[in-house]
C-alpha cells in the first residue's frame, strides 16, 4: 500500500484528501482514497470539509479588500490604461519603420534582378555590334574622358599614331579630329548640353544669352 493508506484504522494523509477533492491524485491513489473515505467517517467528513474550503477560497477571492473605493479605483485604472495604450502607440510608431525598411530591401531584389538582366542584354548587344562601330564607341567614350582631362591639363588627347577620325565632345563643344587635324564646331559660348551617340555622332546645344537663340551642332563620323 502507498504511504498514508495503511489500513482503515490509519487514516489517509490530509494532503491526499486535499488533493482528492480536486481530482489531483493519481488513478490508483484516487481509488484507494475513495474506498477508504467511503468507510471512514472521519476521512469522509474531511473530504467534505475540503470541498467546502474550495468554495470558501473562491468566495474570499471574490471579496473586495476592505477600505477600497472600487468606483474610484476602477475609474483611475481605466484612465491609466488609456494613457498607457496611447503612450505605447507613440513608442510603437517609430519602431514600425523597421518593417517598412525590410519591405524596401525586399523590393530592391526585383530591381537588382532587372538591372542584371539589362546589363546582360547590353553586353550581348555590344558583342553583336559591328567591329567598326564598337571601336568608334570606345573612342568616343575615351574622348569624353580625355577631352575633359585636356581642358583641365592642356594636354592634347589625340595620340599621334591615331589617324582615324574621332569625334570629341567636351565642355568647349564638339571637335572632329583626324590625322592630328582638329576641326572645331564650337560656338562663342559654352554648350548648354552635349550628347554623344554610340554610332559615332555628337551634338552640342548652345543658347545665346542675349537673344535666346538655340543652336544645335551635330557631327557624324562615317
Amino acid at each position: 500500500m502507498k504511504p498514508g493508506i495503511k489500513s482503515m484504522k490509519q487514516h489517509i494523509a490530509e494532503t491526499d484528501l486535499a488533493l482528492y477533492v480536486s481530482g489531483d491524485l493519481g488513478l490508483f491513489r484516487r481509488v484507494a482514497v475513495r474506498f477508504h473515505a467511503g468507510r471512514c467517517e472521519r476521512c469522509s467528513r474531511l473530504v467534505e470539509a475540503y470541498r467546502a474550503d474550495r468554495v470558501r477560497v473562491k468566495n474570499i477571492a471574490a471579496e473586495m479588500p476592505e477600505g477600497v473605493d472600487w468606483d474610484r479605483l476602477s475609474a483611475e485604472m481605466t484612465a491609466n490604461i488609456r494613457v498607457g495604450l496611447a503612450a505605447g502607440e507613440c513608442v510603437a510608431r517609430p519602431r514600425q519603420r523597421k518593417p517598412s525598411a525590410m519591405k524596401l530591401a525586399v523590393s530592391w531584389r526585383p530591381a537588382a534582378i532587372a538591372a542584371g538582366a539589362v546589363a546582360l542584354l547590353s553586353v550581348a548587344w555590344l558583342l553583336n555590334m559591328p567591329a567598326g562601330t564598337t571601336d568608334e564607341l570606345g573612342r568616343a567614350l575615351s574622348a569624353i574622358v580625355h577631352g575633359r582631362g585636356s581642358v583641365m591639363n592642356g594636354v592634347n588627347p589625340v595620340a599621334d599614331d591615331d589617324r582615324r577620325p574621332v569625334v570629341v565632345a567636351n565642355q568647349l563643344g564638339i571637335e572632329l579630329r583626324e590625322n592630328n587635324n582638329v576641326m572645331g564646331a564650337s560656338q562663342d559660348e559654352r554648350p548648354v548640353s552635349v550628347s554623344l551617340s554610340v554610332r559615332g555622332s555628337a551634338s552640342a546645344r548652345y543658347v545665346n544669352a542675349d537673344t535666346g537663340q538655340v543652336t544645335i551642332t551635330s557631327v557624324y563620323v562615317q
Partner: protein
Amino acid sequence: MSEAQGPAGGATRYDAVPLSSEQQTRFVSENQKRIFLLIYRIVGNVPDAQDLTQEAFIKALQRQDQLKDLEKAAHWLSRIASNTAIDFLRRAGRVSFSDIEDMTEPPRSAPEDSPEGLLLRAEHREYLNDGLAVLTERERTALLLRDVEGMPAEEVAARLNCSKATVRSHIANARVKFRKFVAREGRA
C-alpha cells in the same frame, strides 16, 4: 466592429480584433474587477495590484492580435494577469517558484517563521485577514490558479515554471493550512 452578447447576458464575445476604442473600454470594464482581485490575492496589496492590473490590460490590448480564439478572451486575459503578477513577485525577489527538489533548504511553511519575513510581509500586505493569509505566496498563487481560475495542475505548473509534483505539493499544503485556519476560527 462585430460583437455579440455572451450567454445569459455575460461578458461580451468579440468576433474580430483589433477591438475598437469603445470595445476596448467595454473589455476593460467587464474584466477589471476580476483581474484586479486575482492579482490582488497573488501580490497581497492594493497599490501593487492596481499597477499590475493596469499593466496586464495594457499588455493584453497591445497584443490583441495574438489572441487566436476570441471566445477565450477572458481566459487569455487571466493568463496574462497571473503571469504579470508572478513576474512581479519574482522581480521583487519575494518568491521563487523553483522545484522543491532543487531547494537546498526546505521551504518555509509560513511567513511568520522568520522575523524578516514577517516584517517584509507587514510592509507589503494590508489585507490578509482571511485564511489566505496563512499561506506562503507560492502556495497562495498555486491555490488561486487551481481553485479560483480553475486551471489544471499542469497549466499551473507551466505558469509557475515548476514541476507538476511541486505544484501539487503547494496546493495540498495550502489546503491543509487553510483547513486548519478555518477549523481554528471555528467556522467549520
